[in-house]
């Protein structure tokens, strides 16, 4: 009986991504599925232009609308800690997902943290690449104004033990521009050992660029976050690995955890690292099927 | 000249009304214009002269009333219709585009074309030639046909507009205060042109505030006042002084005239 009466909890997920960022789609699908399975109401909110100050307002708004819980990213502690703390204090449970660190999550009073620490992921990738003999690289940053993108590149450079310097380019988001900027960079710096892209937005055009200048399969190519084309690239051997932070889990788990916490009072004792997981050519079938949707 | 009234009128405006929102600009004006006559439209500022000729040239649709052109009722949807029916207009506020060259302006809306490989192109050569010629006829020597209209003086622009209207023939030529900004020489030129055009059998509608200009070329005079017509007079049936009185809406100018002497 208690279960039935508790059903219909409302959870709101707030992200920092602009409307058009395709990666967040998996997140939307993740919470939708969790909502369906758990029988709770879920909503997705984001600042249309990706302005973090707007995001703070959305968290306040979400708190004001009185949900049972809020799932949010913590992409800038300074901006978001205030509104998140206020939400926690007014009785709304919060889980931090995707960006931020476990320590920060604890400080704002969140129940737990689910995600992939960006710098660490970049660092791990850097170490791996160093092992594979990479000495210089190009980081294609399609979202330069977002701090987590820069952290990934920085982490990668530090993992390799080299200076980031001019190896990160601001590619913009237009595929033709990305493709041609990559081509331009590689032709001006033909000795580049590796390419690192930060998601499907930059990876897809980069694939084409490498195809066009014949470096495909020859240059070391790693990427963050999966997508349809990326999976094909991994399969074809053009991409050496993709770092999967499993966004699906970042969205799905918090809803499940929170629902169970609210219904039965159970809560995992630790944070959950949904990534980094390296996806390589082995064991790609499921990844392939659901890339961009649940992967 | 008065015998012309025995012909059928080329254009008949019957009981035209025009309202703009809460303003009644024309409250029922009827005018007939005959081929070969110069019909002067006179009246105070705001009497509705421009509004009236705009309904004639298809810019405004009348709120009430009928327009008969060559005996048939017409409904002009836009100035194009009126122009292709044969009504050319030189508006009070110029119909010239400063950034465009004189020859492009001259042929605006009436571009000459030549066929090249089955497709029709703007015939720049012809346009330039005709423009230079016509402007020379009006007494204006251009630096070249591609000189921008913006570099011409107000009077010169007015002359281009009139030359254009005259060049494209038309059966009715409407001139809205064409002489108001012109110098003496240019004015004489325009009046002479009106005279010439009229003699070719074209009907001219001529708006002016200057009694002498009206008397110099007008065959008939219609006076508008506050959106209504005060009637039409034949040339010779009215003295300049009477006409001037009517144009001023019948108000007394005596006090003034004493000190300033005669008609203004």
């Amino acid at each position, binding site marked *: 009986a208690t279960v039935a009466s508790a059903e219909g909890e409302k959870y709101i997920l707030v992200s920092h991504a602009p*409307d058009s960022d395709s990666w967040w789609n998996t997140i939307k699908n993740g919470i939708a599925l969790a909502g369906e399975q758990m029988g709770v109401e879920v*909503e*997705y*909110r*984001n600042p*249309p*232009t*990706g*302005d*973090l*100050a707007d995001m*703070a*307002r*959305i968290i*306040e*708004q*979400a*708190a*004001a*609308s*009185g949900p049972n819980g809020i799932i949010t990213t913590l992409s*800038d*502690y*300074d*901006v978001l800690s*205030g509104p998140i*703390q*206020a939400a*926690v*204090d*007014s*009785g709304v449970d919060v889980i931090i997902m995707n960006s931020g660190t476990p320590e920060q999550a604890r400080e704002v*009073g969140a129940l737990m943290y689910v995600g992939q620490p960006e710098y660490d992921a970049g660092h791990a990738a850097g170490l791996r690449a160093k092992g594979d003999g990479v000495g210089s690289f190009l980081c294609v940053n399609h979202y*330069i*104004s*977002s*701090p987590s993108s*820069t*952290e990934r590149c*920085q982490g990668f450079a530090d993992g390799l033990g080299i200076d980031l310097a001019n190896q990160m380019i*601001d590619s913009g988001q237009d595929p033709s521009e990305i493709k041609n900027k990559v081509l331009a960079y590689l032709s001006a710096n033909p000795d580049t050992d590796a390419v690192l892209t930060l998601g499907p937005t930059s990876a897809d055009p980069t694939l084409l660029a490498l195809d066009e200048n014949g470096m495909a399969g020859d240059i070391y190519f790693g990427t963050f976050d999966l997508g349809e084309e990326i999976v094909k690239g991994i399969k074809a051997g053009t991409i050496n690995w993709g770092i999967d932070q499993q966004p699906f889990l970042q969205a799905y788990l918090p809803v499940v955890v929170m629902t169970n916490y609210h219904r039965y009072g159970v809560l995992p004792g630790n944070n959950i690292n949904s990534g980094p997981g390296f996806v390589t050519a082995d064991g790609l079938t499921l990844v392939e099927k659901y890339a961009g949707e649940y992967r | 000249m008065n015998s012309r009234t025995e012909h059928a009128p080329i254009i008949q405006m019957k009981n035209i009304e025009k*309202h*703009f*929102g*809460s*303003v*009644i*600009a024309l*409250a029922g004006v009827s005018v007939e214009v005959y081929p070969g006559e110069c019909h002067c439209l006179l009246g105070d500022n*705001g009497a509705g002269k421009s509004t009236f000729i705009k309904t004639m040239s298809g810019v405004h649709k009348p709120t009430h009333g009928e327009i008969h052109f060559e005996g048939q009722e017409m409904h002009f949807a836009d100035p194009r219709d009126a122009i292709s029916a044969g009504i050319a207009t030189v508006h009070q506020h110029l119909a010239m585009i400063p950034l465009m060259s004189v020859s492009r302006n001259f042929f605006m809306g009436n571009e000459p074309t030549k066929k090249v490989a089955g497709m029709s192109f703007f015939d720049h050569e012809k346009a330039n030639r005709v423009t230079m010629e016509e402007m020379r006829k009006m007494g204006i020597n251009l630096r070249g046909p591609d000189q921008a209209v913006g570099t011409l003086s107000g009077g010169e622009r007015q002359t281009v507009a009139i030359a254009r209207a005259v060049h494209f023939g038309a059966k009715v030529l409407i001139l809205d205060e064409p002489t108001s900004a012109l110098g003496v020489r240019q004015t004489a030129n325009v009046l002479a042109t009106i005279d010439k055009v009229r003699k070719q059998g074209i009907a001219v509608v001529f708006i002016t505030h200057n009694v002498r200009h009206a008397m110099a070329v007008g065959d008939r005079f219609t006076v508008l*006042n*506050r959106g209504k*017509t*005060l*009637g039409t*007079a034949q040339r010779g049936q*009215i003295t300049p002084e009477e006409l001037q009185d009517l144009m001023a*809406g*019948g*108000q007394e100018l005596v006090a003034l005239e004493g000190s300033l002497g005669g008609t203004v």
Partner: protein
Amino acid sequence: MSDAPNAAAGGDERIKQRSKFREAMIRPELGGIVGTAIVFALFLLFAFDSGMFNSQGIMNWSQVSAQFMIIAVGACLLMIAGEFDLSVGSMIGFAGMMIAIFSVTLGWPVWMAIITAFILCIALGALNGFIVIRTGLPSFIVTLAFLFILRGFTIYFPQTIERKTIIGGIKDVSEGDWLAAVFGGKILTGFFQWMGDAGIIAVFERGSRAGQPVVDGVPMLIVWALILVVLGHILLTKTKFGNWIFASGGDAEAARNSGVPVNRVKILMFMFTAFCACVFATCQVMEFGSAGADRGLLKEFEAIIAVVIGGALLTGGYGSVIGAALGALIFGVVQQGLFFAGVESSLFRVFLGVILLGAVILNTYIRRIITGER
């Protein structure tokens, strides 16, 4: 020939009667007033129990609207003066970043950082204006160039100096700073505490702030918005300078010939717009404690939209500050209200576009009636 000259000189018989009520209604703000009424009616109907109208909810959309108002006041006066500023958004990002770099990286006292940022912004506004006036170029192009230039520097500086695009830690350094409080503080906290104690508004249930009211004061952001709106309104309608603003935007040449110092008016308005952008940026930085390279993206459009919804004419010479403030209110309430009402968030833009279109069409008809425009 008839001979009926009319009597008196007044044009009255040619003007149809217009009721007193209609006369009173016809004002530039009417579109804004009607819009505000409609928007509130709709949300009261569809989102009343979503928390939109409890103390937290009201504070939420008030703050968003106040943000819009701050930039809308500047944009409104500038637009009435016949110019445009597309660099507002970049200016916001730039000003915030400067404050952060001065205070955190260079370690200046916060008040000095803020004042320097204001001086910088106002100087940039003056530069914008100066270029527009001197070259006679449309302000659209000049400020578009500054949109790119300022955003470029806003990304470049922190990246070369600090190797990141967000600079945080401003909260710590601004502790106890008198000027920081003017932008980031709250007023009436005692009153709200009393309301919380008296049970009029909700209080926090747990955590470090348990027992405190959920809304603990009016942020300075809102105070700034109200001050700017009132000052802008008085400046525009009640002073000599206000008349010059209208004149400069209505017809710069005519105004110049009548002795209005058009250049000075326009440059001052560019500076005022920059000032408003800097107020916005400072409030934001002080509230959130960090400055990011992506702050203020697209804010220039939001300012223009608010102003236009509020009945101003894009081509200058006509508009009202109160209207712009109402436009900002509508914009803020709709934006947050759609979240409260649970509308699919990707449709937000669709709504925004439709409202913008509807509002300007309404305003155009109102303006035609007022000015008897042709």
